[in-house]
């Protein structure tokens, strides 16, 4: 039996409208039926683009968002059904590392206070002295000096902050750590430090990770098994190497081909599968296969009407595509261009997208808007936990704003230090 099992997990956020009494006018189908298993001691990588529901799925495992349907079983206990106080106590065994290392640390607590918060909540350690000893040993494990204890989050660099975030998860000695974009907010040279740290800790402490990231290269580097998500569901799942060697789902193929490789030799030879158009709104997912509106191999009838199940194609490789085998053998021709034409000449897509938009019920539209419920607009209406397209954008942009104004951040840092 696996350590962590998700079965048919659905998380639907109601879109509410109304002045005095909110009424539900639709749902954002953030996670729409995901089943997966995570074995003890392994790393499960969840990869997908913004709006695919990977963050929401990660949070639903800790019940930080309400699970609409399905079960999350950790070591024989179904978390989805636990009363809230029991769930609170259970959280010790499931911990999370967040994307934004600064935002996830309370700016007004010092490191000792941040790290003992969880221990106090779960009654670990007799007194502060005992807890401090434990914190010191953990700080040492994550490579931070013990004089960090009395300092505050803003006094550390991005990489160090993420180490604090990891230490905070570790003090509770959890079975599973969910890492939500653990390195995407960090500079490239620092990313590697954190990735290596995560790997070392796993080896030393036998941890189980669920790593959620948009960066396929990072996920492939640290994961044993990878699940690819698109619009709320898994489209493919395979051991890391198998997925890289033989991506079977058209979306995985496109995703893989889009990841830039820092090697001109490889880049020049690569053939990109460019996708047409953008991600549909999770509030109004396409019928049938969620990917059929952008799939280069989409077939007229079946893809638009029948939703493909995740099926085993051998070797622990699961794929949700009606035509995976046909595509692989080359029997199925392209129905959409995948080269530069996909980007610049897109007449057939025009028609298709226009149709999609026409189907949007008027009720879904934001009050003051006459457009499709573009994910960004919907975002205002759903709980903050809902990941929608734009999440990554916001974070990435925030990060880059720092980059754009090194003077400002630099000055702030200087101030911090002279303080």
């Amino acid at each position, binding site marked *: 039996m696996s350590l962590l099992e998700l079965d048919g997990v659905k998380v639907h956020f109601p879109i509410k409208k109304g002045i005095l009494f909110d009424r539900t006018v639709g749902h954002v189908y953030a996670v729409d039926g995901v089943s997966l298993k995570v074995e003890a001691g392994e790393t499960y990588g969840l990869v997908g*683009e913004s709006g695919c529901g990977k963050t929401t799925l990660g949070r639903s495992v800790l019940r930080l968002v309400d699970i609409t349907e399905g079960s999350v079983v950790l070591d024989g206990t179904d978390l989805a059904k636990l009363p809230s106080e029991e769930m609170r106590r259970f959280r010790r065994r499931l911990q999370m590392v967040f994307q934004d290392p600064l935002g996830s640390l309370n700016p007004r607590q010092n490191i000792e206070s941040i790290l003992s918060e969880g221990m106090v909540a779960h009654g670990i350690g007799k007194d502060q002295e005992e807890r401090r000893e434990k914190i010191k040993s953990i700080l040492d494990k994550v490579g931070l000096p013990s004089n960090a204890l009395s300092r505050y989050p803003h006094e550390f*660099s991005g990489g160090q902050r993420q180490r604090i975030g990891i230490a905070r998860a570790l003090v509770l000695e959890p079975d599973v750590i969910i890492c939500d974009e653990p390195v995407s907010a960090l*500079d*490239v*040279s*620092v990313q*590697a*430090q954190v*990735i*290596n740290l995560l790997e070392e800790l796993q080896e030393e402490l036998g941890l189980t990770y669920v790593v959620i990231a*948009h960066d396929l*290269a990072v996920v*492939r*580097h*640290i994961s044993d098994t990878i699940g690819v998500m698109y619009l709320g569901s898994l489209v493919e799942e395979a051991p890391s190497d198998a997925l*890289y060697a033989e991506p079977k789902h058209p979306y995985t193929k496109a*995703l893989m081909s*889009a*990841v*830039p*490789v*820092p*090697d*001109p*030799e*490889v*880049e020049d030879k*690569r053939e990109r599968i*460019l*996708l047409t*158009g*953008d*991600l549909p709104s999770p509030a109004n997912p396409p019928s049938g296969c969620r990917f059929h509106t952008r799939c280069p191999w989409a077939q007229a009838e079946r893809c638009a009407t029948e939703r493909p199940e995740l099926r085993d194609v051998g070797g622990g490789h699961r794929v949700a595509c009606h035509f995976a085998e046909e595509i692989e053998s080359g029997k199925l021709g392209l129905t959409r261009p995948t080269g*530069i034409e*996909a*980007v*610049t*000449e*897109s007449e057939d897509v*025009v028609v298709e997208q*226009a149709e999609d938009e026409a189907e949007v019920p008027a009720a879904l539209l934001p009050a003051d*808007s006459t457009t499709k419920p*573009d*994910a960004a607009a919907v975002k205002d209406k759903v709980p903050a936990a809902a990941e929608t*397209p*734009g999440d*990554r*954008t916001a974070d*990435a*942009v925030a990060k*880059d704003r720092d*980059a*754009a*104004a*090194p*003077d400002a*951040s*630099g*000055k702030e*840092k200087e101030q911090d230090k002279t303080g």
Partner: protein
Amino acid sequence: MSLLTVDELTVTFGGRGRKESRAVDGVSFEVDQGQVVGLVGESGCGKSVTSLALMGLLPDKGVTVGGRAEFDGTDLFTMSRSARRDLRGSKMAMIFQDPLSSLNPVVPVGVQVTEILERHRGMKGEAARKEAAHLLDRVGIPDPTRRLKEYPHQLSGGMRQRALIAMAVACAPRMLIADEPTTALDVTIQAQILELLKELVDQEGTALLMITHDLGVVAGLCDQVNVLYAGRVVESAGRRELFAHPTHPYAHGLLGSIPRLDAPRGEPLSPIRGSINDRIAWADGCAFAPRCDRYEMGCLTGTPQLTEPRAAGHQVRCVNPVLDDAKAEEVTA
């Protein structure tokens, strides 16, 4: 003669009582017609400030710009304010990293595009609208006539970035500066935008200055690459040369610390220790020394100069460069 020649550009913030901080500390590079030049580095390396200085978009107060930048034979820093404004948008255009905040949220996209056409190309009314629709079509925005009437928030992220590119290329500029144009976008959308930029450069012969932190993007797009660290170019070479033989320990370390999609699994990454905060002033030596495994006493006395220790045209600012190619050869083999 190059289209753009930047010579010892410095940008200093602060002064007048406040503590000075030098964001760009003597950056020199050239961009030729039809060439894609990359400025690569991590946050705080001065790449974005460089682009803003070239576009003349830095605030007047509290910023001192030094050095020279010559565009098409004229000095950018001595030309009049209005001449600069005319140049901007017509001959030189910029694409920003955050498409949403670079577009005016209360004005329809179409109006924003036609505005540029009216201002710089003297087009009017229907003609400008037609041209705007054509431009949106050119950058792959489906149903352009309808999109013209929409507001920025009604477009998706990828579409907004395309609209921005359309605005940037509206006047057939001779030079495009793209500051992290794909960082805010998803990978599949990033691929679309990069292909689009590549095509624009190929077809129109536009020069492109690409500013990014992503070495993968650089590898696929740039002809010439400048690696920046703490406000200075530490390595400059052709794309193939740089990736095959990264010679500055920083560039070498960067390449070693990126997980590659195509690398065999299980190979540990070799990160660079410390962070950008651990640095010394260039005046005292090499800013990278505190994070460098190869630093020597010589690295700590005076600014190291750009030399060509490996091949002509491959400039490296390092006293003790990485010349043994164990890793690089392993990759090519």
